[in-house]
């Protein structure tokens, strides 16, 4: 017979193999990541960007002409541009053979470069979103977004003020400024773009998690019904530190009773601990992160703190332990 079943089967297998083999090469080679992003942004979104990489972190700088409107909200145009750049970065990060764990987009208004939007994303989160492993809401919570005054701009302002007030010889100002800015960023808060220069660091998973937990705590205190009515969160800061040979997630929370003049209580403090620990447990578990020895929460208002080890945190997450059983 002219067309046998075996022949058809062979043909199909061949085609399938071709299809599989053509999927083996990466679209964006590791040594051409920067060019790739610049090209995509330029050709597809008409945006001029600058790209820098360090370690497994990729940073994209996006200058905009109209970042915010009168209400301090992002303009629609700026928002679209930022989204386009984020999407371009994700495409390249996903389809490259270079190992990229995080990508960061720094956007600022060219008329006011001191005010910057920093967006940090984990590539793993993007992959999990595509695989429907996490919801879009969870994905949004995992993204770090910060609108802040550039730390480098702050430093420059300080130096200039010192020279001005103390009537120092201005010819040394540049020298001092250069020395002052030599130090590389050590935390996520130091990341930025200033005066045509990137200030970046290789983002690690624990510091990303610490920052994310702090952000989520802020969000919870802002949107959680009971917390919103009970507390006024002044600050929430999260870091990943090494203390006495132990790797700890440390969270400093400063929250006051929202009703004016009301003094804080032990119960209030426990509520803060419970909130922070449950968020920390959820996030750490969500990333399957194991490389830590404990979580410490410090209530700055009451001066109380709590430290839990990973086993206790897991038991707390699964509701096998209550807060009073951990021991404050």
């Amino acid at each position, binding site marked *: 017979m002219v*067309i046998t079943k075996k022949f*058809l089967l062979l043909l199909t297998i061949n*085609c399938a193999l071709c299809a599989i083999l*053509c*999927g083996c*090469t990466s679209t964006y080679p590791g040594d051409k990541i920067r060019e790739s992003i610049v090209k995509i942004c330029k050709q597809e979104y008409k945006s001029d960007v600058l790209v820098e990489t360090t370690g497994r972190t990729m940073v994209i700088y996006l200058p905009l002409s109209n970042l915010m409107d009168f209400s301090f909200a992002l303009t629609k145009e700026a928002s679209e541009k930022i989204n386009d750049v984020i999407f371009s970065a994700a*495409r390249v990060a*996903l389809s490259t053979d270079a190992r990229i764990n995080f990508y960061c987009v720094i956007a600022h208004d060219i008329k006011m470069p001191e005010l910057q939007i920093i967006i940090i994303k984990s590539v793993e989160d993007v992959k999990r979103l595509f695989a429907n492993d996490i919801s879009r809401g969870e994905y949004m919570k995992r993204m770090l977004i910060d609108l802040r005054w550039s730390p480098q701009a702050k430093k420059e302002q300080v130096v200039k003020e010192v020279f001005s007030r103390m009537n120092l010889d201005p010819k040394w100002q540049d020298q001092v400024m250069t020395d002052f800015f030599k130090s590389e960023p050590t935390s996520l808060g130091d990341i930025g773009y200033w005066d045509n220069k990137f200030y970046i660091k290789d983002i690690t998973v624990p510091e990303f998690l610490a920052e994310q937990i702090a952000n989520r705590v802020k969000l919870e205190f802002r949107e959680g019904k009971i917390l919103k009515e009970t507390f006024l969160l002044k600050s929430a800061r999260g870091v990943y530190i090494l203390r006495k040979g132990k790797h700890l997630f440390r969270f400093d929370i400063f929250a006051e009773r929202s009703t004016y003049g009301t003094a804080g209580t032990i119960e209030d403090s426990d509520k803060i601990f419970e909130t922070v620990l449950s968020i920390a447990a959820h996030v750490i578990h969500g990333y399957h992160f194991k490389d830590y020895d404990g979580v410490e929460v410090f209530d700055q208002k009451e001066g109380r703190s709590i430290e839990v080890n990973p086993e206790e945190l897991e038991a707390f997450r699964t509701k096998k332990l209550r807060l009073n059983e951990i021991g404050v």
Partner: protein
Amino acid sequence: MIPRKWKMYIKMYWVKLAIVAAILSVIVLAVVGLNSLESYYRNITLATMPVNLLMVALNAVIFVFMYMTFMKGGFSKLSNKLRVHGDFVDVKWSDVIGMENVKEEAMEVVQLIKDRARVKKIGGKILRGILMFGPPGCGKTYLAKAIATEAGMPFVSMSGSEFVEIFVGVGAARVRGLFKKARELAYGYGGCIIFIDELDAIARKRVFSAFGGTEETNSTQNQLLAEMDGLQEIKDKHGNPSPEQNVIVIGATNAPEDTIDRALRRPGRFDRIVYIEKPGLEDREKLFTYYLSKVEADKSLDVSRLARKAVYKSPADIENIVKEAALVATKNGRDKVILEDVSEAMERIDIGLKRKLKMTPHEREATACHEAGHAVVLYILHPTNDVFKISIIPRKDTLGVTYSQPKEELYSHTKDKLLADIKVDLAGYVSEKMRFGVTSTGVSGDFKDAMRIAHFMVWSLGMSDAGFLGDYTVIPESQISEDMKEKLNEETDKIFKQCIKEVEELLLKEKPILERLISELLSKEELEYDEVEAIFNEFGKTHIKSAW
């Protein structure tokens, strides 16, 4: 210029070709589409492809199941009986064992098929069909395949029952489909052989209703007649009949010739009628030699003895006997088939496997008495048959058996032989009555056979003493007078009673042999040919059979 074979392939397989082309296009488009994706999306797509394919397949299965269950009345409709494959078979003349006469006839047919042009040139009629009659298992299909191989033509085969459906017009459509396929193959290969097995399913005499309605088989057969007449030929591009397609139809049936519609048997349809008989002694020897060569058999095995024993066996029976013998040899722990294995296999097939039935002592004795009666009459009176075995071990639906075979195949029977058959049948009854005074239900089968033969002798063969000649069964019953019926039945009864009387006399006369056989059977349960022979010889009886 596209060669004829390619044209044929395109005509025959255009649906498949179109499907393959569509599948290839889809695959090419898929590969191009995948290549245009970025590697991550490509990998995700490829990774999810097996699951997607599985889901699509699952959906399709569920859809088809529901559609067939709720809309079409089940999966029976799914089986596509119209699927016809034209294959080249590889059965040579040398593979067709025995049947020398038939083979000669078939070779002549092959020659006619091959020399079609020459036959036409001298104005001869072109062969359209061959109809083979013969008992089942005699190699009709095999012969048809050998004809196809020798003629170098593709072979399209369908069973008559495949045309039969309860839906009106389906059978005729299948005939059209079959011939269409065959003509396409003939177009490419210069000829094609259609083989329709069990032709009687569609070729029975047609029934014409007084109300104008016809049976479904009528329309199927009408279509077959039309196709065989060559009216449905492939037309060329100008609408003219293309050069004649060399399509030969070979039909095979084991139904009697007169059950096949005459229109099919006339020249121009099935021109040649080939009668295939069961193999003769020589052919059986060849068949045993052939099939024993396929198993590990003892070299000293006497195939001529086996062939003599296997009277009236078809080639399929002989093949089955050898296969069974191999199983028996294995069961008996032998690595070669010996004569005893073949004998046992033959008995297993002919008289059945032994049953472990617990009989009462009286039942055993009655059975021994019954079988001994058969054996004595058979040995002494029967002109053609030998006693091969007497047994009182239950087999099939009997409690005992007297296994006899003719020495050679007989194609007609004398009055003596028929009377002997009746006497052998009645001997069991007489023997029981002589010994016990009463008889058992074991005689029912014997009486039925005996009465049938006696009735046949009187009503059909003119073998009564009263001189009623002719076959009274062809006369419609209403046209035979009651008086005549009575007379005929009296003659039947006379034969019956006369036979009983003669058997009684014989058994009384040979009572010592009868008693000896009964006691031997009760002690041994089974007596083989040699043992039976020895007992009769002991009483001075020799068994001289002669086929008249």
